[in-house]
């Protein structure tokens, strides 16, 4: 799809005095591809991130559909087991590192400067560099599928020694691509922290920031803390594979379980990296369409911070069956259960915001409401998984697959879509087509639930995850899941149609595109000019 540039000059419906974008003060950008390669503009880079993540969402989605097609009925009918493993692995890696994370970074690039009244990100050139690392990383990763022995086939969690001693030859390239993607995330996070801490509009205190900014600030701290740990782990893998060390190899005095500890020390905060910005988006949308201030702003901030801190203390709940000592099992069971408290606070705050509001159901609100319901279902199954003795039955079954897809698909992905529908008028100057958006929403909701709800049952009935073929008693569940996944996949084409149509035209949106919207981004014209807030706006404190 051809991305449409934000126009160079303010459009006539601008009503805001603070939003003076002055194209004349800036040199004409280079034309054609060079413009996109060299841009340092936060809006253009934000668009690049979003387009990249949408493309990757489809590539990762196609991998998922290959998996679901194979699982449509018992028997190996389409692909071979080794290719099946590559598909599940690539699906996970692409969705986590190339779809969800860059989508949030894209939204951050676009919206954080607008929400805090800054002219751009703090480090615009670094911003360009961190984006262009991503296509490099993932073209490299995808190319491993064509290498002898195939691509990574050890699951997105790449447990040693399956990913070291027993891995395909392409694993070194997999490590390299993950390193590049990691550097990109880290640089993006540093940029976001520097922007939020130093470039807020005069008068905007930390506790005045919109929650999307707050959640991203905390997410960025998590990224800075744990991405280096991931880099460390994969460096150790690289050394085990190529330089004869024995970090994870029992034969040389190493320990495969150490890998899991290190991985999940990164991996659990990573899970929250993929959900905290979603909380921020939903906390912006619900008050807007309930026409009522967010309930418990301060407690939302504290809850987000507590979730982030607790995320460093729960990693071993992914390892309840590796043979931890009893004391460790109990410790990680209790800390994990504790996370339900701040998460619950968030859900209660959203619902109380709805209570006695004046609610309308525009497309962003539909997705935000579905997020609240379906994310809560995922959260509740998370509480069940936290109970260590019961986890001996749930662990590594489809119950877990159902759980984390509920928090990631109708969780993180729906929040991203809600954010896109919410901010599209700001980006393009047009409202998205409501009818199509409603079709997209309802098809997605039905598809997502058809896909993932039966997985709870197949998991409880005893189906392990990551198997290419299954016993006959799981056939019905898998049939429904596969049909649901095709529906969900196809309905995302509607989403692409909505976005393209919205870029091209549609009902014109005013600066304040939604009646109940209050944050600073709604004070600049729609579409937002390329340069905004060159003179810092005066920040009007709203009630929080």
């Amino acid at each position: 799809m051809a991305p449409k540039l934000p126009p160079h000059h303010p459009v006539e419906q601008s009503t805001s005095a603070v939003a003076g974008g002055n194209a004349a003060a800036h040199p004409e950008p280079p034309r054609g591809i060079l413009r996109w390669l060299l841009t340092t503009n936060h809006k253009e880079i934000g668009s690049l991130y979003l387009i990249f993540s949408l493309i990757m969402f489809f590539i990762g989605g196609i991998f998922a559909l290959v998996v679901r097609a194979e699982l449509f009925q018992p028997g190996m009918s389409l692909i071979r087991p080794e290719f099946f493993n590559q598909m599940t692995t690539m699906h996970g890696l692409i969705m986590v590192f190339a779809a969800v994370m860059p989508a949030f970074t894209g939204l951050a690039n676009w919206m954080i400067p607008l929400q805090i009244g800054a002219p751009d990100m703090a480090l615009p050139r670094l911003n360009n560099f961190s984006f262009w690392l991503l296509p490099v990383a993932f073209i490299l990763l995808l190319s491993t599928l064509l290498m002898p022995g195939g691509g990574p086939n050890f699951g997105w969690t790449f447990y040693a020694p399956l990913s070291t001693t027993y891995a395909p030859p392409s694993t070194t390239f997999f490590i390299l691509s993950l390193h590049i993607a990691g550097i990109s995330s880290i640089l993006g996070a540093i940029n976001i922290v520097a922007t939020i801490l130093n470039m807020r509009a005069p008068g905007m205190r930390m506790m005045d920031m919109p929650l999307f900014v707050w959640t991203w600030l905390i997410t960025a701290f998590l990224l800075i803390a744990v991405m280096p740990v991931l880099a460390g782990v994969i460096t150790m893998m690289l050394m085990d594979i190529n330089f004869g060390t024995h970090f994870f190899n029992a034969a040389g005095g190493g320990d495969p379980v150490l890998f899991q500890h290190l991985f999940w020390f990164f991996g659990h905060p990573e899970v929250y990296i993929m959900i905290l910005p979603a909380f921020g988006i939903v906390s912006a949308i619900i008050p807007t369409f309930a026409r009522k201030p967010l309930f418990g702003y301060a407690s939302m901030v504290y809850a987000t911070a507590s979730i982030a801190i607790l995320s460093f203390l729960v990693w071993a709940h992914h390892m309840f069956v590796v043979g931890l000592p009893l004391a460790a099992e109990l410790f990680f069971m209790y800390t994990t259960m504790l996370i339900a408290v701040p998460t619950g606070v968030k859900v209660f705050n959203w619902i109380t915001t709805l209570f006695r509001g004046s609610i309308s159901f525009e497309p962003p609100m539909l997705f935000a409401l579905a997020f609240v319901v379906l994310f809560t279902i995922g959260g509740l199954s998370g509480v069940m998984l936290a109970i260590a003795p019961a986890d001996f039955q749930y662990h590594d079954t489809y119950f877990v697959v159902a759980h984390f897809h509920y928090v990631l698909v109708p969780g993180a992905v729906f929040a991203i879509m809600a954010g896109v529908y919410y901010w599209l008028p700001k980006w393009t100057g047009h409202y998205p087509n409501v009818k199509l958006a409603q079709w997209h929403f309802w098809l997605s909701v039905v598809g997502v639930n058809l896909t993932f709800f039966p997985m709870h049952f197949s998991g409880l009935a005893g189906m392990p995850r990551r198997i290419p073929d299954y016993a006959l008693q799981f056939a019905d569940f898998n049939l429904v899941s596969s049909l649901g996944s095709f529906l969900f996949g196809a309905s995302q084409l509607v989403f692409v149609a909505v976005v393209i149509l919205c870029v091209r035209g549609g009902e014109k949106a005013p600066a304040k595109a939604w009646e109940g919207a209050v944050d600073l981004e709604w004070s600049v014209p729609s579409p937002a000019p390329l340069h905004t807030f060159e003179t810092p706006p005066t920040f009007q404190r709203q009630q929080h």
Partner: protein
Amino acid sequence: MTDSNQPNPGVRRTVVRSVAALVGMFAFAFALVPLYDVFCRVTGLNGKVDTTAQALVHEEVDDSRFVNVQFITRNGSGLPWNLEVETRQVRLHPGQTAEVDFAFHNASDEGTWGRAVPSVSPSSATRHLRKMSCFCFEEQHLKAGERLELPLVFQLARDLPADVNTVTLVYTLYPVTRDDPSLQARATAGKGDEA
């Protein structure tokens, strides 16, 4: 737009601090490797045991109860050796010292290096197992067809938890590639400790 030629001092400070945090966390990941080892030894996590000899502790033998100690030997891939234990199980009191012989045999026609990697179960017993001497502290070299008997001398501490009445010691044989410098360093270090 902030001109990156004249960075905001606040931005610079934030970046410097973030980079320091990054470097720190990267180093921390590597520091976790030895920390984890220490943690395992202290808590007995994962059945890891000390790889150096411990001193015999003269404590009164607790003859009010018996503990079964089982020995299991296993062959990893790629090492043409047999490892056998003279007895599969001993019964002893906590505080008592026992010696068990293990027989190594190189069934191939060339000399090779190997090591027996130890593991103990249940993990709650690990901390209470003292090995005064064990073939598992070092790598072994066996000439073609050589047979070697090596002892394991150990003691179960008196404070072994009351609910532990069977302790299993497993030794898995793995080949050692001797042109590997890191291993050599490790082996030498191990010997240094012994002396």
